[in-house]
């Protein structure tokens, strides 16, 4: 197998780590020295070999351990995975999308053999070799969405489209940045984004919804979003805030480099063919500040972005209290020299 999978944890002793390979391909989200809120959507096409944008579904060294973490979250709280009855077909769409993409793009890790509706799926990293009947739920150990997303990194929001709106009617959500599937399920786009206080923000939401409603088959889209997390925690759910919220108070100048993580979400958007539903895979990447500053351009730029970020945004993203310490720590890595445009490191 081409990828060396880490044996690591995202809780307790936090043994999560990024190899040099993972650092180099990290989706650093800032293309300039400042950050403005924007929709920043682009077509989800293969881009830059080796980058996280190369494949339909990125698989990296954290795969096996992330799947173990997901299984543990689900064992503790089965409500992290839910699907309303009319979303089963969308679940099969997702099975097909992921299996076909992974078998095509990672032939050394995944295989899909079809004999009519009789499919055999081989997932070598997780040691799975299952034969089932496509569209027959009784032939799988879980519902189709749960089955495939227990084997795929990232959260999944499954949206039904009707009445010119999107409805969060299914999902697998175990690595979220502070939102809850159990709370949002069954809500429409405006409900799960509520409250939207200002008319002008309402305008942005209406435009974003229009964009999403028009995502077409064969033309997936993507965007990056980011936040901060203390410790490499995947599961920062509101249900568990009492466990992770207080970790924010553990930061010191000494441990900040290893404890403070930039958390980047690669959000992708696909139209599903049979159900006409939309699926939003939300893949979470974590990087410690220590690792991040090994790329000089990123260290310099992150310092400037965090320093100049409007107060509301730092509050909204939940790190306003730690910002002064973060800025001070990062300033050691900012010599004031200019940074180049774009998100990639300079050495290539």
């Amino acid at each position: 197998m081409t990828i060396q999978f880490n044996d690591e944890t995202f809780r307790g002793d936090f043994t999560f780590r990024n190899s040099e390979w993972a650092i180099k391909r990290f989706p650093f989200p800032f293309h300039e020295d400042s950050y403005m809120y924007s929709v920043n959507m682009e077509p989800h096409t293969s881009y830059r070999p080796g980058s996280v944008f190369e494949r339909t579904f990125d698989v990296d060294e954290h795969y096996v351990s992330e799947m173990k973490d997901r299984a543990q979250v689900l064992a503790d709280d089965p409500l992290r995975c839910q699907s309303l009855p009319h979303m089963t077909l969308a679940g099969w769409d997702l099975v097909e999308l992921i299996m076909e993409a992974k078998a095509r793009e990672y032939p050394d890790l995944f295989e899909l053999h079809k004999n009519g509706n009789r499919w055999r799926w081989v997932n070598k990293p997780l040691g799975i070799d299952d034969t089932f009947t496509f569209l027959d739920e009784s032939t799988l150990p879980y519902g189709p969405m749960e089955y495939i997303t227990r084997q795929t990194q990232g959260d999944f929001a499954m949206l039904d489209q009707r009445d010119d709106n999107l409805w969060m009617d299914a999902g697998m959500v175990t690595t979220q940045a502070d939102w809850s599937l159990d709370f949002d399920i069954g809500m429409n786009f405006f409900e799960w984004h509520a409250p939207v206080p200002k008319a002008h923000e309402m305008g942005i939401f209406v435009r974003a919804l229009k964009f999403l409603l028009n995502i077409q088959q064969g033309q997936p889209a993507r965007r990056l979003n980011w936040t901060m997390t203390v410790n490499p925690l995947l599961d920062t759910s509101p249900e568990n805030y009492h466990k992770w919220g207080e970790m924010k108070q553990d930061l010191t100048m000494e441990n900040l480099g290893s404890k403070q993580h930039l958390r980047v979400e690669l959000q992708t958007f696909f139209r599903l063919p049979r159900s006409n539903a939309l699926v939003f895979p939300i893949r979470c990447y974590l990087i410690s500040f220590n690792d991040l500053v090994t790329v000089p351009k990123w260290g310099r730029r992150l310092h400037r972005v965090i320093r100049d970020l409007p107060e509301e945004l730092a509050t909204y993203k939940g790190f306003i209290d730690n910002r002064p310490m973060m800025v001070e720590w990062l300033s050691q890595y900012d010599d004031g020299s200019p940074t180049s445009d774009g998100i990639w490191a300079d050495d290539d």
Partner: protein
Amino acid sequence: MSAGTAKLNVTVAEVKPINDLVTRFKFVRTGGGGLPTFSGGAHTVVEMQDGDITRLNAYSLMSNPADRGAYTISVRRDDQGRGGSKFMHSKVKEGMEMVISNPVNLFSLDLRAKKHLMLAGGIGITPFMAQMHQLAMMGGRFELHYSVRTASLGTYAKELTERYPGKVHVYHDDQKEAIDLPALLANQPLGTHVYVCGPKGMINWVHGTASEMGWPREAVHSEEFLAPASGKPFEVKCAVSNKVVQVGEHQSLLEALEAAGIDAPYLCRGGACGQCETNVIGYDGKFLHHDHWLTDEQKAGGKHIMPCVSRFEGKTLVLDR
């Protein structure tokens, strides 16, 4: 980025006249391989190279959505139209290579429905054919009421009656048969969704009757693609691309923008999806709005136009394109 741009290269595998007006076309992927699956109700936009004019028409996919071997559409000849359907009938032959768009669905089934009640008029039968395939496969409950002019113009009526015994009801205009809509709607189980595809009058009748009988708006679905209307030629200034474009008598504004190399998004080309909505920067004259998309208020406001079906009469029109 134009929305309608993801293309599929296909070869015409079969051209089959079905009756005096309707011809069926079957497409397979050029060079082999499967086509994308789709959902019942989806359409594809077919590109036609008609001399130096490129025509693009949207047609509902009528084949089994799970069959990735081929797509099938049916085209009704419209002698009064601008030429797209005539091109399909007269120029498209087996073996010809064509370009079509990925499937787009603006008329999908509501999968929460306990029962799907389908009302078709004429060529409006095609999206239901794919939906019935899908529902039959999923074990969904459905019923079709299909109104045709005469038995000989009852496109696929016989085939459907045989394929779905007891579920298909055909009404012949020439025998004075008509769907008894109030009775039909009154006898549906709770959780039924109604779908209508056919002429404008039929669509309005179904929406109107259902709403009078207290049906929730969300339980009644319709699809109607409008053919772009012909009209007096006019001139448009495109502010962003800094071009002046002439729109011909039988050309749509959208087609004229495309011919001038201006990026103009679209999905349905039939006034239904909203994708082509364009801001008007200035005008002196009157709009001929033909779309289903803009509200009456927006239409009166003079700030938006849907270039796929709407026109303009007057001195100047400046668009944000």
